[in-house]
């Protein structure tokens, strides 16, 4: 079980990017004129294209039976990696050894022809994905049942609704039986119920000991399906290991949001206390630039007390970006001697919708404001969710607060 089924050694893929003014495809005219020009000028030719390393020296192995989730931001090289593994494009450098039949599903319904009927498309798509006619015939009824489009089997798929189209396409793909299945972000389409069904089907596939490589932005899907993970960032492999660790790394290496905010020290007049920094953390105290929706978080605020205070209170406020206050929390008043302190505000299961929020920090002594920092720190709740079991995420558009009220229905007559 532990023999590597895929071995990737020092894999690189370089793309040539043409400058913006150049057309998307080469015209013979350009090649001819460039050739003519280069007769007179020797260099300068190379400067016309920019190089772009989509994958940069990536090495890893995948064992038979592993279900590997590949995650990373857009442009990290995930799709390029899948394309190379599926033999659609060739590597620029490096070597890949694959011991098994590979089927890849980089798009739902590749090769579907709108004029053909559902029945005809099942055969066509199956053949494109690498099934033999006999294999398709054996699985035909199963595919039709899975797709739930029996009634429209002899209708051209151009008359299908997009949901039916996707269901049929996935049904074909789900019945592939390769040793290695490569799947790119295809579950993003279709309704929630069908997504669950697909995910279940993929779990069955991996349960049969087959190897799955799966790219997705839905962390809960990746976590549910995969036991191993790989994190790519700008073409390099950052982490590989157990899926949960990789997801955590991914959430932390976030480039757009920050977890640490440094406050400027007020020049004058020197107040008796000021805040120095604020950090957003997960419940284990690790920095968390983007809080996955529904996950616990806490804010750690550092502050310095210059003069002794009798009734020191530190407050943390949360408001929307439009300055609508959501909640404010005050610490209990206490006397503090000069020195450096930290205050910890632990979010207590109030789940905000995915968005950005302003964090306000206020320091006061016996009701007198020492410092007020409006919105210099931002809290980012991301739509990426980590499966937390208990939490029920309904729909981020359903409101600012994700927590559900208790509901009871009873018959009154």
């Amino acid at each position, binding site marked *: 079980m532990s023999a590597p089924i895929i071995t990737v050694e020092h894999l690189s893929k370089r*793309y040539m990017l043409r400058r913006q003014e150049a057309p998307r*495809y*080469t*015209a*013979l*005219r350009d*090649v001819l004129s460039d050739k003519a020009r280069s007769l007179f000028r020797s260099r300068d030719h190379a400067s016309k294209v920019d190089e772009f390393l989509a994958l940069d020296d990536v090495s890893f192995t995948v064992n038979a039976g592993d279900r590997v989730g590949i995650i990373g931001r857009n442009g990290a090289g995930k799709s390029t990696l899948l*394309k*190379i*593994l*599926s*033999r*659609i*494009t*060739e*590597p*620029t*450098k*490096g*070597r*890949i*050894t*694959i*011991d*098994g*039949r*590979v089927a*890849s599903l*980089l*798009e739902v319904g*590749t*090769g579907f*022809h709108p*004029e*053909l009927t559902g029945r*005809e498309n099942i*055969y*066509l798509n199956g*053949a*494109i*994905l*690498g099934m*033999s*006619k006999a294999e398709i015939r054996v699985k035909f009824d199963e595919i039709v049942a899975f797709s739930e489009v029996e009634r429209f089997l002899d209708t*051209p798929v151009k008359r299908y609704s997009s949901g039916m189209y996707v269901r049929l396409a996935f049904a074909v793909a789900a019945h592939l039986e390769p*040793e290695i299945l490569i799947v790119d972000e295809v579950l993003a389409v279709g309704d929630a119920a069908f997504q669950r069904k697909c995910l279940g089907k993929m779990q069955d596939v991996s349960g049969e000991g087959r190897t799955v490589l799966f790219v997705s932005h839905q962390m809960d899907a990746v976590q549910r399906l995969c036991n191993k993970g790989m994190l790519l960032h700008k073409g390099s492999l950052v982490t590989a290991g157990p899926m949960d660790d990789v997801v955590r790394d991914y959430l932390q290496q976030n480039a757009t949001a920050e977890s640490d905010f440094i406050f400027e020290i007020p020049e004058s007049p020197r107040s008796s206390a000021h805040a120095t920094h604020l950090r957003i953390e997960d419940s284990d105290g690790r920095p968390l630039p983007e809080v996955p929706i529904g996950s616990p978080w806490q804010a750690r605020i550092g502050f310095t007390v210059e003069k002794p205070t009798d009734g020191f209170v530190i407050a943390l406020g949360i408001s929307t970006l439009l300055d609508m206050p959501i909640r404010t929390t005050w610490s209990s008043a206490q006397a503090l001697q000069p020195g450096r302190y930290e205050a910890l505000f632990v979010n207590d299961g109030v789940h905000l919708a995915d968005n950005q929020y302003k964090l306000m920090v206020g320091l006061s002594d016996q009701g007198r404001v020492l410092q007020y920092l409006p919105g210099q720190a931002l809290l980012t709740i991301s739509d990426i969710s980590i499966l937390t079991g208990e939490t029920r995420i309904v729909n981020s558009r359903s409101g600012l607060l994700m927590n559900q009220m208790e509901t009871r229905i009873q018959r009154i007559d």
Partner: protein
Amino acid sequence: MSKHRIILEAGSADRHYWRDLWNYRGLFGFLAWRDILVRYKQTAIGVLWSVLRPLLTLAVMAFIGWLFESRLPDGVPRLLLVGAATLPWTFFSNAFSEASNSLIANSNLLTKVYFPRLIVPASTIIVCLIDFFIAFAILVVLMVAYQFMPSVRILLLPLFLLLALITALGSGLLIAALNVKYRDFRYIIPFIVQFGLYVSPVAFSSADIYTSERIPEALKIVYALNPMVGVIDGFRWCILGGETTLYLPGFLTSIGISLLLLVAGIRYFRKTERGFADII
């Protein structure tokens, strides 16, 4: 385990290419089947187009031959002389243009799934073969109508059909691969087909060229370089029999060029194939 071992390396030629091609023969059939099914969807007269098109071409070319008084071999009606030529020519022109555009037409497949890319242009040629057989049936009907008895040479026709296929495949592969990178060829293809109709012996016969005293010898050699000259002459030789003769040096030149095209086509195609998905 090692039965399916694949090693992917930069620039390394795929050792199992031809075996892969064989494994994917099912897809080859399915792509051809798809093109046939889709072909006349949402047309009013459907498959009748496959009959109408060769008939119209035949009528026009026969008219041109009559207009310019091109020579007829003894006992051969003009419609048969021209018909024996439009048959391979129409096949070639369709197969060549379909194959040349096939990669671009199927770019959604090339960027999403692996299979030996040769399958795509090759399967389009199969579809054109069906049209060929329909046109052939029309020719047979004409022969019956004229009460024209072909000679036994007609048994050799498959060989010349193979030659036409080789010519179409070779040039089609070459242009298809070039077309992926240089879209200029999209505009060149119709031109080649149109031009080819005039320089190939469709409305006239090769004998007119080779026996003409007005045409310089050098130009006759250039004429023989056109691989379709060999194919069409061969078709006439098989179908019309009788006094039609093959001008051997010219015929062999045409065969040589056809084979050369096939080798060059496959080579260039194989060389560029692995980069198709990146540039299409």
